[in-house]
């Protein structure tokens, strides 16, 4: 089981690192991408736009390192849920916007064709995050040294045959 969690950490964490890193060079674009959803009040749009890429890279790095896996998996799941809701709502309202998932954002003439695939991808990553919330003890994680007292995930899962 620890291997599945390890793979989930690399997958979800890797996606967060890439998604966040692509946005970091142009935070103003990130703000505009958030604004384009027309969901949040203008008072919070700049803060969310600036913070999101930083948070994304941070939880990505921590998931890959296996640091505070459960906590970061919860944050990850909440964000993916928010993105699914955001994209679905943009689709439902007939907005034609690039999701801004990996940088970019704003008007996109082909947006409607991309929405289903983007939602499916985020649901998959949401599922992987929830797996880690359920089973945060994984192979090759800093948590095993720092949080779980040096015991390997095999003894921690209480497998009686070991």
């Amino acid at each position, binding site marked *: 089981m620890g291997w599945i969690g390890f793979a989930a950490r690399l997958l979800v964490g890797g996606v967060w690192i890439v998604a*966040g890193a692509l946005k*970091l*060079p*142009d*935070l*103003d*674009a990130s*703000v*505009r991408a958030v*604004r*384009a959803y*027309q969901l949040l009040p*203008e008072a919070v749009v700049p803060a969310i736009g600036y913070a999101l*890429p*930083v948070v994304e*890279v*941070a939880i990505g*790095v*921590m998931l890959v*390192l296996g*640091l*505070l896996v459960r906590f970061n998996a919860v944050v990850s799941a909440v964000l993916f849920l928010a993105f699914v809701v955001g994209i679905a709502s943009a689709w439902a309202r007939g907005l034609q*916007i690039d999701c801004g998932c990996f*940088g*970019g*954002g*704003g*008007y*996109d003439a082909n947006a409607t064709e991309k929405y289903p695939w983007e939602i499916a991808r985020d649901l998959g990553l949401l599922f992987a995050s929830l797996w880690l919330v359920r089973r945060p003890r994984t192979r090759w994680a*800093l948590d095993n040294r*720092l*949080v779980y*007292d040096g015991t390997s995930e095999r003894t921690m899962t209480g497998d009686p045959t070991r």
Partner: protein
Amino acid sequence: MSKKQSKATKQANMQRASERAAAIRAEHERKERRSRALVVAASVVAVLLVVVAIAWGLQQGGSGEGQTSNPPDNVVDEYALAIGADDAPVTVTVYEDLMCPYCGLFEQVSSQRLKEYAESGDVQVRYHVVSFLDGQSSDRYSTRAANAIGVVLDTAGPEAAVEFHDALFANQPEEGGSGLSDEQMIDLAVEAGADEEAIAGPIEDLKFEPWVEDATDAWSKAGFTGTPTVTVNDEKVEFESAEDLLANTEQAIEEALKN
């Protein structure tokens, strides 16, 4: 009797000893847990700090945040270069990015027609240049071109600025490559009627970059997400193609003139 008592005492002693050992162990674990919590907290803070530092380092150019953006002279409605009378009954605003190919296409079909409207006195045409496509060129052409337009507007007035703007679109670079160089832009600006000595410095130093950022912000905050966007008396014109956009714009102008 005595045997029994000694057994009880032994048991009590053993219990006391194991309690003491447990207490020591618990104390030890508490300390361990605390130091581990510290290491975890420090690691999390370290990750966040590194990411924030990288984000800080990656920011291109000086951010205009908090900086007062000094708009160029001759600007209309804070961010536009305009042709046509200030008191014209209809206002057409064209939002465009110098790097946007569709804007170039729209310019090809609309430029002449909109000039005629401006000359008739019925319409003031405002070009509101934004820069959100810096990622499409290797040298931030969006921002550099918008700044150059601000410089020409500032030093040579709106007619020269609009002519320069037309020339930039006529010489629009391909997406993904490098934009026009500063020298090329200066040459085009001089052809449009600007004074080389007055414009060279501000074009190279991106004098109006904060203003360009604010212009982009204003466009985004107005609810627009793409370019070209055209409004007629602040009403957005819908479209499917560049020809469409001009036809619908003309229709909206005629309707506005009737009222």
